[in-house]
């Protein structure tokens, strides 16, 4: 029998972990309203009580003096994330559909090997890829441009899209495809009319992962763009290089992670419905 202390133990553990998870956000939040004096005075947490809050940090990130402008990097990041995610989802679901429905055989290579090829690309460390990418983009005149960054980001995201969608398509009965074909749809129409409309949960999960990994990429942007295009993570990290204006850094960081935190709310909905389960196995 469970002891009466079990609930106490349970909620204590949950609360401790919640503090750890929320701590950095709380710290960033409180710091973003400080100024140099408040920061230099040692760690304080509660505005008005322990320090006098100012909006300096927040002003700085929107082009205030001595700060940066996060709007342009934000737009760049959004464009790159959305474009790369869309391309990856489109190419990824087509390929995943083929791998889930048809049998491929090329010598000893089977379907599972092709899936493995896709997924295994996640193992490539960005640092290994970045030098050749540099020369590749330079050769194509795409260095320091949005299209260039989109192309390399696709390499990061395509494996994720294929991984999620193969599992998802495997969960849709083949009879649905067969029925659509019997009903007069050639293969491509079958995919578009019968399968895609039933794949929304899978596409959502894949899009979520793509958005997370696309938005959060730093290394490629860091080494393949310089002056013309700057992404949001780059802009924030740039603040960190010299003597850190912590308040600006904190405000910029919160601004940078906010869009995806909203995403977490949405993901949880899918989780409760059990839609994610297919992607896990």
């Amino acid at each position, binding site marked *: 029998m469970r002891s009466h202390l079990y609930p106490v133990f349970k909620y204590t553990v949950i609360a401790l972990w919640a503090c750890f998870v929320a701590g950095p956000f709380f710290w960033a939040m409180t710091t973003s309203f400080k100024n140099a004096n408040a920061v230099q005075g040692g760690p304080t947490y509660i505005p008005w009580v322990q320090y006098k809050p100012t909006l300096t940090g927040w002003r700085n990130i929107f082009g205030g003096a001595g700060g940066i402008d996060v709007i342009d990097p934000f737009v760049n990041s959004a464009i790159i994330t959305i474009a790369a995610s869309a391309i990856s989802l489109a190419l990824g679901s087509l390929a995943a559909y083929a791998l889930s429905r048809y049998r491929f055989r090329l010598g000893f290579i089977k379907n599972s090997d092709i899936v493995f090829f896709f997924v295994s690309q996640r193992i490539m460390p960005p640092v290994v890829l970045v030098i050749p990418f540099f020369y590749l983009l330079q050769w194509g005149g795409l260095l320091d441009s949005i299209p260039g960054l989109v192309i390399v980001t696709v390499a990061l995201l395509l494996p994720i899209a294929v991984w999620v969608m193969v599992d998802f398509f495997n969960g849709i009965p083949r009879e*649905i495809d067969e*029925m659509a074909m019997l009903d*007069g749809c050639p293969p491509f129409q079958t995919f578009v009319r019968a399968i895609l409309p039933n794949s929304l949960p899978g596409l959502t999960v894949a899009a979520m992962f793509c958005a997370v990994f696309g938005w959060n990429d730093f290394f490629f942007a860091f080494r393949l763009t310089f002056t013309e295009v700057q992404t949001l993570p780059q802009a924030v990290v740039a603040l960190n290089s010299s003597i850190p204006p912590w308040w600006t850094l904190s405000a910029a960081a919160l601004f940078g992670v906010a869009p995806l935190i909203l995403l977490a709310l949405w993901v949880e909905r899918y989780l409760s419905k059990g839609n994610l389960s297919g992607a896990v196995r």
Partner: protein
Amino acid sequence: MNLSATDLCLTVDGVEHLRNVTATFQPGRLHTVIGRTMAGKTTLLRALAGLQKVDSGSLTRAGTDFLKTPVWRRDTAMVYQQFINYPHLNVFDNVAFPLKRAGLSRDEIRRWVRQSLASVGLADFERRKPSQLSGGQQQRVAMARALARGTGILLLDEPLANLDYKLREQLRDEFKALFSDRGDTIVIYTTTEPAEAMMLGDVVLVMHEGRILQTGTPQEVFERPATTTVASIINDPPMNIFAGRLEGGRVTVAGFQATHVSAHLADLPDGSYQFGLRATDVSLASSGVEGEVTFVEISGSETFVHVVVGEAPFVVQIEGIHDVALGDPVKLRLRPDRLFAFDEQGTLVRTPSYDLASVEGR
């Protein structure tokens, strides 16, 4: 426009799914394919639909090579054992889907869908999603979709197998009415249930281990089963098959000797045979072959008593519900005049006379 299959063969991973299947399917007739699970029935339907490639053989329709025709141009509809519908479409759109593909006008589509849904009794369910329907209703939607398009070929793969007993009975009757005027559609219906095959089929094909063992009218197949295997597949419970000897038209089986010479066996040469006797032609009696009850099954209205005589298992079918205790010793009366005789290889050599169809009830 017959659909003719010749010598269709398919082997997957060393298992023969189709072995030289040759059959002709005629327009306007309902063909039931009966066989146990894994007999190759589903594979055959999938091959006809173009969903399954075959290793060899040919398939022609109206002089064209059907094997080269892609699935989406085969003019074929299929109803699956699992209730397969488009999950994202409501009932109306599910039925309309093939009609839209065929390029019908809006009004025509509406008319055909309404008519088709009415014929399966789902007129009031147009706006529901398949997931909001019961199993029986989902299968009706699938039926309506298959019927709405009026394809030249209609394939039904054990459409009732996953439904409750009562629903099965009800839909079987409905199907009979639905199929009664299908014009010149070729209908092919697979099942594991003899009663279903018999009552729905114009033509019955008996399939076993990838082969078609016998083709004929229900009456022919039931009354003249070509082999012991057919006899056991087309009867429910399976026909009792046992080895015995025939001497002067007199049958001897372990512990059982026919007291009367059976007229229909009289002119057969003496020797060893396999005999077949339907469960309805064996009864529990006060005297006869001694055996022991091993199991009793009760359907809604019949009792099946499983009896073992020596080593040989027998099934006895009794009308009505009767309480028979397991392990009880019983005596069986076997009717010699109803014996089917097969040679030792299992090929039919003599059948009891069933020329009674014209005789009025006795």
